[in-house]
């Protein structure tokens, strides 16, 4: 969203409040990361079962005692919780996320291998979802009841249908039957279309609902009437005046958008046999691969913090009143 120039200030010289806001946000962000690391650490620690046996045991294993002892020693599994936790935090402070139990490589490397694929998927999904949301909401707000009902129905279906089902239906139609797209994998741009569309539909529903409701309200405001009275065309009124007001709640929902994209990637990547952070997370949870699980949670939390910071700044661009408020 490019905001119209504000007569009250010039570009490049934000009020001092903005800088303070950013610093405050960053401090809170670090706190969020620490909290996320701690909670995940405790949650995984509390899963019952001996981690060493999980790493080496199972129905198809026959580990020797020496191997089990070695695992306990290497991963500090015999140490008290506090020691394990402090050791982990110490590592984090030095930028060391630890070693994956399952893959036996550094966690940063394990996540690094997958992050590009997930970024591609989430980016493509956002590129599909946002224009779709704006187009649908802008054209359907304050229209005849049957159009609203129809659009609203589609939104509800998109929002309420589990991602797995949406993905499977798309697969059946476009891959199994029509053979337009590969059934899964990471080969070529065609392979990203269906997974991205699946994710996009899941986030489109709620976003479009919120934006349209806001537009409905805004379009009844007096200034809209004024704009129309000045002879502005309907499309102009919707895009230039109403949208700017209605988009704030949608921005607020960016956090939701990121969460939905990251969470959805777990399901979508598994369904479409794609590599990515989501399928890494799933495999790691199955195997109680603690370092990788915490790594993925930290990554998600970091993305969240950054996005929220960005949203905050955007607020001030779109609606200068936010800074002083």
């Amino acid at each position, binding site marked *: 969203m490019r905001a119209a120039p504000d007569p009250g200030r010039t570009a490049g010289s934000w009020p001092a409040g903005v800088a303070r806001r950013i610093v405050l946000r960053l401090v809170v962000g670090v706190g969020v990361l620490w909290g996320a690391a701690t909670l995940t650490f405790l949650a995984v620690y509390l899963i*019952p*079962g001996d981690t060493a*046996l999980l790493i080496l045991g*199972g129905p198809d294993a026959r580990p*020797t005692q020496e191997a089990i002892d070695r695992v306990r020693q290497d991963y500090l599994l015999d140490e008290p919780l506090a020691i394990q936790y402090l050791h982990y935090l110490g590592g984090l402070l030095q930028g060391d996320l630890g070693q994956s139990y399952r*893959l036996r490589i550094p966690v940063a490397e394990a996540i690094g291998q997958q992050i590009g694929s997930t970024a591609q998927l989430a980016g493509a999904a956002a590129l599909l979802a946002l224009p779709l949301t704006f187009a649908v909401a802008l054209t359907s707000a304050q229209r005849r009841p049957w159009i609203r009902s129809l659009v609203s129905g589609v939104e509800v279906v998109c929002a309420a249908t589990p991602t797995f089902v949406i993905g499977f239906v798309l697969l059946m139609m476009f891959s199994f039957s029509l053979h337009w797209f590969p059934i899964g994998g*990471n080969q070529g741009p065609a392979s990203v279309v269906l997974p991205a569309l699946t994710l996009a539909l899941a986030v489109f529903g709620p976003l479009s609902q919120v934006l349209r409701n806001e537009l409905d309200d805004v379009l009844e405001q007096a200034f809209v009437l004024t704009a129309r009275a000045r002879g502005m065309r309907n499309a102009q009124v919707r895009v230039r005046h109403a949208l700017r007001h209605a988009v704030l709640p949608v921005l607020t929902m960016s956090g939701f958008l990121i969460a939905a994209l990251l969470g959805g990637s777990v399901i979508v990547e598994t369904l479409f046999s794609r590599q990515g952070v989501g399928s*890494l997370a799933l495999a790691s949870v199955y195997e109680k691969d603690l370092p990788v699980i915490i790594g993925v949670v930290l990554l998600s939390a970091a993305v969240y913090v950054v996005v929220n910071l960005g949203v905050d700044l955007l607020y001030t661009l779109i609606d200068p009143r936010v800074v002083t408020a």
Partner: protein
Amino acid sequence: MSLPFHAHFTARPGTARRIAARGAGLTVVAGLLASCASPAGTQAVSADATPVDGGVLNVSISAEPGCLDGHGISATQQQFLGRLIYDNVVTLDDNGEMAPYLAESWDISEDGKTYTFHLKEGVTFSDGSPWNATVFQQNLEHMRDPATKSPLAAAYIAPYVDGTVIDDHTFEVHLEYAYTPFLYTLAQSWLGMTSGKAITESPGTLCQNPVGSGPYVLEEYQPGQSISYAKREGYGWAPEWLGETGEAHLDGVEVTVVAEPVIRHQSLVSGQYGLTENLAPQNAAAVQADPAFTYENLPRTGSPYVLGFNLNREPFSDPAVREAFAAAVDTEAVTESLGFGTYTPVDSYLSKESKYYDPSVEGIPHDPERAHQLLDDAGWDSRDAEGFRIKDGERLTVEVPTVEASAPSPLLVQLQGEVRQAGIELEIIQLPQAQLTELRYAGDYDALAGVWHTNTTDVLFIRYHSSEITGERIGQNSSYVNDPELDEILLRARGAADGPEAEEAYSQAQHRLTDLVPGLPLYENPSQFAYSNSVQAVATDTSHPVPVLTYAWLAQ
């Protein structure tokens, strides 16, 4: 460690349930697609066609181990993956007989404790380093090194004491006691030979960057997703039973993890993948009916799928209850329904494919009347309000823990229904994997379902010898069978050289097990895979019945 879907997948009943649940969905899909002919519809190529060089074979696989160093994992998928990049010291030929591979010959001392291997010359690993006696020794040491964290290989070579490098290509192994299974385990995919140079210089990277001497070389590995292999230039030491020598015909093999069974099936049919290493049973009929595909359903040797009883505690400490439980279950009906007709029911504790399987051994037939009689006689002769048998105020309950899943294991649900009619309550306890493993090692259950695949009949020792009861060390005798007579037979069997003496001992062991009833045998542990007819010369191994792609080729 392996991903959720072991191809011992029967040991993860939760997953099996998921497959079954989707079976219904698949019928719908199949209906929708009825008009859609197979795009992969290649014509069958006659068996004597000349192999074509070139092309990359795309393979889908249900899961991958997360680590490709066979010594450090126990995952089922390694049976297939290991054959691509590793060679073994010995191999089992078409007839299941021990045959040369990286060792040209070997001598076994009279007492069975010393093995002298004469190694093939001129073999190199993909990093250029040579195969020789020192490297063989390094491999055995690497398997048992605690730093390798081996969940399987170390236990298989447990009797290995040390070795002597006699000369560059002669290696002498000293075992603690006579252990005939030694050679067999050396033929298994998990025990493939790794470059000695890599073991010395970069042991920490073997998981992600394994270096073998096999027909393919690892090119790129994306853990959890895909593994790319390229043909090994200059390869020329395949085992004789493959019927060819020289380099692979394919330029490479691209293995992709496709976790969902329905998707694996569909992407095979659509031609996206030429071969799937694991075809779910509910898709078998469709693929079998399609002339454009070859479907294989081969039993894995070793222990078939068995619901093992815990003989250490009530109620299965009573042989009558064990026999009654077995008589109460219609194994054939349960198996038929579980495997969509693709599972082979068994009544023995040893797979019919295993060496020394004794067909004269007969299991307990389905006989509900006998089950009632046995339980009445054992004192479980009154019933509570829900119709379950009681004795001294206690209900006849059998606790069976299993790994937790969205729906309970279909096998256990079926067994629950079967034994309900005999007045036995089967309680399904769903637990997270780690907790299940703990409970398993603590012996805190009445019965556990599982398989154990190995290419040696020594599986009976692993599963039923008293020294394999988990105590100070972890064992696989989860039935807590502690029978001096059986112990003596099994010890004799593993010490006997292959031949009549071993055959006799293993036959005795199978009969003795049938008397002891340590569990309820259910069905063979199947390896089910399928491939398009454009893929030619897919071999299978007698150690593991999985596709061997050494000389596979793609028809134009």
